[in-house]
């Protein structure tokens, strides 16, 4: 039995071909992972399957129905969770559930669902005030209402921590029946490796459709194989790092957190946080959503005022002299925070000016950066039109424009595909070797392995500090992900 039958499907937007003569079958009762680089056509394919987009050419047959002509019948059999979860942020948890129950003509029977998502204590909280992991669970709960025959999840695990990711997987596996078909688009290849089937898309074509275990037996090998299928990744020396001019200084620690504390009323968002990052070290801040990583980050670069304690950047107190301290660091924010309406070149020029590069040097520096980052072909494009991987590279370019000795990266690779992530980390590790001090947060545990030292954050406090190896030993586990989960669970007891 097939849930999805697609024959010679084509879909174009203006001039770009999103889906290119694609033929694909998805078997009923299986969990299928949908993998591919940014812009490979994953979201477009999902939207075509449920009839949210109309195809240019080709046939789609979903559960024996045509999404073009029989959308009303089709949608009552499917559950779809879009990338932004589709939650009403100004409605409470229970109000969101009631709304979707009404839309799907289901009874108000949420007890099991709330229990399962551990949202019972938060049912009267506004969805907008939930942490990323909880939003995702609520989104999934709304999608699962009415026990759909076919579940479609579009990158549900972007930006959530490993524990929430595991919970989500468990939730899906426990809530569905053996007849339910699941199509799960993901950037996590370890996730995809655990599914029944993997479909790899590349430039709108299906380049692999089969059992993940047929491709490789371990998640690591699977990742290598998928990268190979997508055209491979050449580990070239980083031009960005080569172009970096090291700065000489005498300090032992370039970044110091000195008893940082942030209190909201009686609640400690960050408590007693101290660390010292040496020159050229990659220091990772890890922890579940809402543990206080972002708050720490904001205090470190002077964007939030600590209740007590302080931070020193290159020996300069961030509270006493924020402008001077900040001039030593490059900052890359979680969301794309450049000016979308400006071109690549204009963004670089703006940030060069903002970081105080004089008018005479500015053009030279911008030209240099454009050359080093390979922006020649896109320099006059509006930055909002760039693919995600380019946007992320542009953010890094803007952070590095003034050749800073320190880089702060807040979830820099969230939502970026595996090849772009590899390239990115190649630059970061090479920069560190040239003496750049790096503070980074991430939810990808394979990225955590690149860190020299990690501070594991939970409920506002650092519960473990050490190298990835030390943390794994401390938790008696073999992978960083298991170490993360074990250490958090132990400290919760």
């Amino acid at each position: 039995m097939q849930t999805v039958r697609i024959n010679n499907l084509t879909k174009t937007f203006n001039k770009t071909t999103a889906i290119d003569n694609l033929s694909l079958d998805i078997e009923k009762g299986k969990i299928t992972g949908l993998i591919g680089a940014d812009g490979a056509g994953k979201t477009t394919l999902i939207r075509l399957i449920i009839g949210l987009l109309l195809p240019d050419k080709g046939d789609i047959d979903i559960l024996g129905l045509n999404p073009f002509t029989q959308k009303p019948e089709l949608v009552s059999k499917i559950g779809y969770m879009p990338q932004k979860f589709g939650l009403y942020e100004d409605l409470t948890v229970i109000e969101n559930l009631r709304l979707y129950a009404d839309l799907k003509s289901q009874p108000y029977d949420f007890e099991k669902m709330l229990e399962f998502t551990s949202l019972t204590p938060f049912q009267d909280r506004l969805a907008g005030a939930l942490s990323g992991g909880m939003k995702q669970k609520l989104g999934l709960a709304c999608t699962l209402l009415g026990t759909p025959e076919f579940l479609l999840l579009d990158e549900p695990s972007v930006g959530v921590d490993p524990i929430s990711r595991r919970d989500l997987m468990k939730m899906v596996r426990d809530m569905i029946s053996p007849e339910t078909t699941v199509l799960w688009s993901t950037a996590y290849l370890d996730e995809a490796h655990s599914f029944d089937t993997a479909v790899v898309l590349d430039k709108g074509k299906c380049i692999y459709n089969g059992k993940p275990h047929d491709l490789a037996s371990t998640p690591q090998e699977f990742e290598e194989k998928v990268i190979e299928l997508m055209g491979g990744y050449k580990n070239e020396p980083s031009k960005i790092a080569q172009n970096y001019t090291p700065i000489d200084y005498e300090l032992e620690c370039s970044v110091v957190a000195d008893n940082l504390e942030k209190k909201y009323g009686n609640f400690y968002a960050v408590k007693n946080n101290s660390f010292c990052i040496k020159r050229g070290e990659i220091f990772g801040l890890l922890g579940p959503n809402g543990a206080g990583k972002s708050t720490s980050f904001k205090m470190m670069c002077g964007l939030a005022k600590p209740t007590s304690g302080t931070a020193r950047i290159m020996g300069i107190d961030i509270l006493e002299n924020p402008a001077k301290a900040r001039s030593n660091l490059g900052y890359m924010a979680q969301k794309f925070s450049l000016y979308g309406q400006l071109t690549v070149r204009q963004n670089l020029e703006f940030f060069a000016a903002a970081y105080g590069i004089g008018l005479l040097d500015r053009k030279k520096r911008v030209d240099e950066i454009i050359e080093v980052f390979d922006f020649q072909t896109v320099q006059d494009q509006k930055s909002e039109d760039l693919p995600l991987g380019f946007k992320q590279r542009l953010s890094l370019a803007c952070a590095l424009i003034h050749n800073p000795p320190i880089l702060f990266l807040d979830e820099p690779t969230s939502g970026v595909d595996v090849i772009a992530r590899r390239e990115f980390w190649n630059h970061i590790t090479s920069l560190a070797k040239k003496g750049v001090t790096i503070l980074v947060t991430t939810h990808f545990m394979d990225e955590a392995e690149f860190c020299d030292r990690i501070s594991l954050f939970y409920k506002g406090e650092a519960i473990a500090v050490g190298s990835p190896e030390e943390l794994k030993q401390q938790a008696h586990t073999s992978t960083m992900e298991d170490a993360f989960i074990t250490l958090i669970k132990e400290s919760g007891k």
Partner: protein
Amino acid sequence: MKILTALIKKEFLQIIRDPSSIIIAFVLPLLSILIYMYGVNLDSVKVTLGIKNDDANSEISTLVKSFGHSKYVNSIVFDNEKDLTEAITRSKIKGAVIIPNDFSTKLSRAQAGDLLIITDGSEVNTANYVQSYSTAIANGWLNTSKFQRFTPTPVVNSELRVWYNQDLNSHYFILPGSISVTMTLIGILLTALVVAREWERGTMEALLSTRVRKIDIVLGKYIPYFTLGMVSMMFNVFLCVGIFKVPFRGNYLVLFTVSALFLFTLLGVGLTISSKLKNQFLASQVSLGIGFLPALLLSGLMFPINSMPKFFQILTGILPPRYFITFIESEFMAGTVWRLVFVNAVFLTVLGLILFALVYKSTDMRLKG
């Protein structure tokens, strides 16, 4: 039906949680009525005049006195021309009346006496007042002075009666008119945001993947904002009639029925903008441009339509506020005029239905691409 109820319930929850809709529906009317009540005044105001009397005749000094007694004028007496000129330049006085030295002589000879009235043309409105007040005071004086016998008996004796607004109090038509401005804001600006918001936040994509029908989405927006608008309308009327004592001579049922039709057309404008643009920022700009500003400037509230250029007069024909303002001003001040009610109601209904069809047509059930 259940789906529609759920959508309406959801929309109401969002309205209650969103401070901006409450501000637009209840705080803004209060503010605008206060401003129109105490800030804006289109009525005649007391003007300060300078008087210079060059006529030594004692009878003429009573003319100077009657300027002093007038309730429309503050008069300051000047002795020399230099001071007078300077007072005008410094805007201490808004105009001046100069009585020449042969004024009484000419009058006693039954000739026309010349009065020089100087006005400040940089403030046209005030200049008109200065002219008409001075002439009226001088004529009034003439009728009671001893020179009266030289003036011919007027052939036409005009009597003035002001209908509908005996006190010529401009608040009585501006306050009801301001209701239309508030209604335009709720009907166009607020609703222009709501569909665009669903597209921006990705909730529309989730809605479209359920069994929601097009008519559910459309009515799910019309009904809640219609209700909000009508509640705000009642609040406005209460403020005008209950608090600020604007006389209401019409029929409340007629008032609210036509208001409902007006709101219906406005919602059509707002929702069309929102469904077409799918972007909150753009939608708010466009709704200010094509909704709010015409309602303020081209509806006849501020400037009479028949004194506009022909092109704009025709243009006002497609603006809902134009029909509503004519209606609400007459409903408040003159009472129900059935012919007027009927004409405006028909126009509003036709416009409203056309817009409803447009909203229905521009509501996308699929993503664009």
